């Protein structure tokens, strides 16, 4: 059964980007501006300890997300589409619930979870379309949006034409 499932699953890669670089850069800035100076000055004050408690997990999270960057992929199964990013993102979209598939640019807001040039992950608010569950190698431009009754998903398949054709074929079969 498992073999059959794998056989019927099609994998699609996202289009290439330097999103990983921005994640590493963010970690480097936090390390350079907060962690290293705090360690150099010493842990004599509660502020220094608090800085490390906040900054070390954040910097590590950015580095781990950068490490998982190559694992971003879209899996098209018989009855669902799965968006994956390492072990932290697994968005399952039942094909029967899809209402619309469109490509568009999205409007920037100052709020976000993970959104840098070349990468957008998790639930990201956009000015014009509201919250979108992102698993994409672009933050704003040419995002393929898949909408269901309850959610909007943003992705960036490298071969968009083939991807959309495959999803439509599965939906109609």
């Amino acid at each position, binding site marked *: 059964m498992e073999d059959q499932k794998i056989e019927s699953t099609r994998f699609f890669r996202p289009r290439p980007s330097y999103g990983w670089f921005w994640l590493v850069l963010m970690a480097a800035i936090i390390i350079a501006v907060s962690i290293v100076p705090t360690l150099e*000055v010493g842990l004599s004050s509660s502020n220094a300890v608090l800085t490390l408690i906040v900054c070390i997990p954040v910097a590590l999270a950015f580095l781990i997300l950068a490490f998982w960057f190559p694992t971003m992929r879209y899996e098209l199964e018989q009855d669902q589409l799965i968006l994956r990013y390492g072990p932290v993102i697994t968005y399952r979209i039942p094909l029967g619930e899809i209402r619309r598939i469109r490509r568009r640019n999205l409007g920037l807001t100052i709020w976000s979870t993970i959104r840098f040039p070349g990468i957008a992950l998790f639930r990201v608010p956009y000015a014009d379309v509201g919250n979108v569950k992102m698993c994409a190698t672009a933050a704003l431009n040419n995002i393929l949006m898949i909408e269901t009754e309850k959610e909007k998903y943003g992705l960036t398949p490298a071969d968009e034409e083939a991807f959309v054709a495959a999803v439509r074929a599965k939906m109609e079969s």
Partner: protein
Amino acid sequence: MPQVYIMAAITLVISLAFWGGLIYFFTGHQKRYFWLLVLGLPLSTIANLFLKPQAIIIVGQTFHVQPGLGLAAPVWFLAFKVLITPLVEEPVKVLPLLLGPAWKMVTSKASALWLGFVLGVSFGLGEALFVAYAVAQNPAYASLPWYAYTGYFSERLMACFAHGVLTAVLVIGMQRGGQFIWFGYLAALALHLFMNAPTVFYQFQWIPYELYNLSLLIPFIVLAVIFERIRRGVREPKDDQYAREVVFWQQQYTEEHK
């Protein structure tokens, strides 16, 4: 050279990249506002070295309050010293609008928002330099290495944004004209006081240093919410991306879906 200047240089570069990047991306890749970043740079020094001390001296002499009393000064005088910063800084930040080319750029609420934001960020960058200069004059900090000034870095990075939002509020009021100029000024004044509240509370020894550090984030978040609401309010039809979208598939609605 005092080590605080190294952190000041880092702060300027990162603040400029961060807030300049925000302006560039949020205005749809417009570069026409960037020249205004130069205009606000000396204004903090002018306000802090000349205008504010002079105002405090004049009021003190007029009402016979001895200088240097610190917290022992009359309450009304302490309140005046708290008020003087926003009273002076908010009008000073929009002084570059007296230049014709700058004011001519204020053609809509959106342009008022971004022009005000740029002038505020510019003032904030100048203020970061002034604060670094003030710290460098204090012998107590002379022995500290540059990396000991991370508090300065994070505070100044946030202050640039805060000044940007406050000035944007005022310039939007000016763009609307009439009584809205006063509304804009009073709103900027009130927000500035709110932004300074943690510092004032700490100076009055009402809160400990740890709480002071944490509480700096609260005004920053409030100002970010205000900024985002204003920004969405002034969005123009051309900002809408719907025209460029491509619909690949859309469910045909039937009776059962209605």
